[in-house]
Every structure is written in C-alpha cells, then in structure tokens.
C-alpha cells in the first residue's frame, strides 16, 4: 500500500507544487499509532482501526474518520495445466500449512504440491496468514509449511507458477496473467466458488479481499481534504490500477 500512497502523492504534488506530501512505510499499526500521536495527518491502513486504537484516539480528543480508498484482492494461482481450479478457504489453509501434500488429495494429478509464498516482509504474506491459514485452529496458530518456497517478489511467484505444473502461490490480483490460472475460492463448501475479478472484489463476493483505508484525526480540511478528494477522483482511482489494486469507484 506504500507504493499506492507514493503514486498518489507524486501525482498530486505535480498539481500542488507548494504542498509536500511525505509517505512513510512500516505497516498499518505504525501508521495508526503515528496518527494518534499526531506525527502524521493521514494514516493508510489495510485493516480497520481496533477498539483500543479508537478509544486511545478519543482520549486524545480526536474523532477519527475512515475512508475506503481502494480494494485489494489476493489471487491464488496454479499452473494452467493443473485441473484443480476450485478450493475452499479451509482447503487452502490445509494446503499452505503443509497438511495436504499431494494434488491427488484435492482431485488433481499425482504430484507433490510446491508451495510458493512471499517473504515475511510482505503485507500479502501477513494477510494470507491471518485470514486464510487461521481457518484451521486445531493446535496453536497456523503457520506456513516450512517447506514453502519464500520468493522475493510477486513477479517471482508468477514466473514459478507459470513454469511449474505442481506449484500453487498467491499474489495481489494485479499480477494475474495468461500463464497463471486463478483458482476460484469459496468460504465454505456450501458457498459458491468465486473467481477474483474487479467486480467480485468490489462487490465483496470474493473471499480473500480487503479494503485499503485512510484515517484522519478529525474532519479533514485544507490540503488534507484536497488530497483525499484527489484520491477519490476518477484520476486518483485510475492510479490504483497502475499499482495493481482495485478502485472502489
């Protein structure tokens, strides 16, 4: 999400050369903490503010406001020759935590599963762990199987999934390409299987998607309001596509 904010800030500063927008990374928690302590004007977050954080902000005399500025859908991809094209969240959790080791167990070919994951510094890695792997809770927190290959970029996952017929990986849906096949995901076996597209992510039907949010301390005014208006404008929303997220409008 840092890339997205950076792209917005750069485009906006071209139009408003007198205002300087500084973007800093560090994760959603770091941003919200900085907002509450008053060291930034806007916090970008890929999760909603917790009750604790809201209470803390109120204690500081703030009334935090939330904007849904973009959406992110995480696609699960396999090699195009793989016949397994539908998975439930629970199956995904078993797959990535190493309990399902052969594609045969999911109705595919007899081949050992090759897991592709992002490195732990990736927000996508953390999101996948907290929202997909957490579906199984039998003994302690679910972890990625230690055998999972941790690749340094989404592009590396796309490349490996394109060349390895037994691979399964995940990445922000902007990386989807004809050499990878996206798996349709269902929340439970009773729910419909949904493919990741801009429409299904926007409607909330696709199960592994999340809103990207902006928080301000109180009702925005001046340059902050102008920046938010730009983010929500057609031009600002178009920038979202260039960094592989889904516009809200």
């Amino acid at each position, binding site marked *: 999400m840092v890339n997205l904010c950076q792209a917005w800030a750069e485009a906006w500063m071209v139009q408003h050369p007198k205002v300087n927008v500084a973007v800093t990374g*560090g994760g959603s928690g770091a941003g919200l903490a900085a907002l509450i302590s008053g060291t930034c004007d806007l916090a970008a977050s890929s999760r909603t503010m917790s009750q604790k954080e809201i209470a803390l902000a109120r204690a500081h005399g703030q009334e935090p406001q939330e904007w849904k500025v973009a959406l992110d859908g995480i696609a699960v991809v396999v090699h195009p020759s793989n016949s397994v094209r539908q998975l439930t969240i629970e199956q995904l959790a078993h797959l990535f935590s190493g309990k399902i080791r052969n594609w045969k167990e999911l109705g595919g070919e007899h081949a050992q599963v*090759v897991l592709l994951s992002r*490195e732990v510094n990736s927000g996508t890695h953390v999101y996948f762990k907290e929202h997909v792997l957490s579906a199984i809770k039998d003994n302690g927190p679910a972890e990625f199987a230690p*055998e999972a290959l941790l690749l340094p970029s989404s592009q590396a996952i796309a490349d490996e999934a394109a060349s*390895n017929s037994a691979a399964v990986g995940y990445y922000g849906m902007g990386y989807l390409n004809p050499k990878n096949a996206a798996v349709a995901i269902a929340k439970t076996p009773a729910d419909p299987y949904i493919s990741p597209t801009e429409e299904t992510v926007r409607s909330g039907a696709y199960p592994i998607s999340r809103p990207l949010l902006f928080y301000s301390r109180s009702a925005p005014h001046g340059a902050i309001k102008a920046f938010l208006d730009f983010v929500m404008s057609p031009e600002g929303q178009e920038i979202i596509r260039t960094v592989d997220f889904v516009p809200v409008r």
Partner: protein
Amino acid sequence: MWQRWRERFIEKTIAASGMFSIIVVILIFLFLLKEGLALFRTVPMTDFLGGDRWYPISEPPRFGVLPLILGSCVVTLGAIVLAVPVSIASALFISEIAAGWAKDALKTGIELLAAIPSVVLGFLGMAVLAPWIKYLFQLPTGLTALTGSIILALMAMPTIVSITEDALAAVPRGYREAALALGATRWQMMSRVLLPAARPGILAAVMLGIGRVIGETMAVMMVTGNAAVIPRSVLQPVRTMTATIAAEMGEAVRGSDHYFALFAIGIVLFAISFLLNAAADLFLHQERH
C-alpha cells in the same frame, strides 16, 4: 624545519589511513554485537542456535536459526566441491601449459567472470539453470541448494583460480627443472611436485573462495527457494543466512526481537567469515616461511 613538519604530517596521514579500515571493522563488529546480543535478553541462546523453526513474525515468534546455518553450509559446501577441482585444473593449465596468447585470453576471461554482477548470475540461474535441474532430476521444483551451489561456484572460481595461479607461479623454477631432469613426465611434475609445493597458497585460495561464497546474497536468494527447512539433500530448497537478512531487514521493526535476531544472524556470519579469513591468512603465512 618546515620539511620535517611536512614529512611528519604525511607520515601521520598515511598511518591514519592504514588504521581507518581496522577501526571501521571494529566499530561494525561492536555495532553487530550491541544489536545482536539484545536478542538473548528474551530468547535463550540454545533456542536461537539449536531451534529448527524460523517463524519471525508469528505469535509467539520462533527464532530457530539452525536451518539457516545448515542451508548456508550446504550451499557453500556444494559450491566449493564444484569449484575447487575445476579452478585448480584451470590454474594449472594457465600457469604451466597454456602458451602466450592463450594464457592472456584465459586470464582475461576469468577476470571477466568475476565482473558479472551477481544479480545477473542469479537471473540466469532462475531462468535457465533451475528449469534444467528440475527436468534433469525430475524434481517438484528447480529452486534447490544445488542450483545455488552451481551459481556460487561460478562466483568463487575467479578468486580461487587467480590465487592458485599466483601460488603456482611462486614455486621456484628449479623445482620444475629438477623434476623433469629426473625423468618425471609433465603430469607427474605437476601433481607430485608443483601442487604439494604450492599447497598453502591453494588452501588459502579455497578459504577465500569459501568466504566469497558464504557472504553472497542476491543470487542465492533468487535461486535457492528460501524454504527454512533443515536440508536433507542438495536437491531440496534451502534458506541461507544472508538471504534471510536481506529479505527481512526492510520490514523488521527497529528494536523488535525480529530486528535483533537478524543482527544475531549477522554475528554468526561475521564469526564464520572471520574464522575463514584467519585460516587463509595462516596458510599464506606458512607459505612465506
């Protein structure tokens, strides 16, 4: 009078420059220690060095660095096994057999190999070598320790070849002539006289080659798959210490256990490199006497 002052000034400046690198090394080491040892306030040393699970961002986190140390060792050992015979043979050829222009061409070629940026080698490994290894050994994935070893062997070769060649060149001419005069063939002369005479230099070359390989990061991160499991064969993905630091440092929160753990890995790496360099120095020293 003026002359003396000037000379003294220049002398001191040169001495200070000489000291500078040592001071920098000491400062780096102290910084590593300060940041790395902080980990052991919360994580016992045995859990760190002996643990077999690396889950730095889980709740609770696991900082078992054993798979990473073994990963580095397997990749490095593989690279050395592949690089050393080829490098020594190539140094022998360059220094003893190749004549005039061939010698120059080979030397330049090997220096060029050292000039290829490691990312480029990593990219080649990913795009060409990994699919080939996957096909050859019928593996689930081509991103394995062996792939890393082959790429690293290419990186270690220039170091090993040039130092070995220097060591061979330093063997007195009389040794060769005496051996040949006693009726030895050229191969007998090389294998029984030259190589033993140049042994300390060759050992130093190998040590420096290992040092070059164990610290390499980018190419290894691209081709070894980075799975933190204790390696059971070279045809399996592994995660090295260097790749772990490079991949995770960017997002580790300053002052967190994860941040300290990465510095602690740095201490382990530093200690290994230091021992290797000291060993190489010892061998080179032996040669001089």
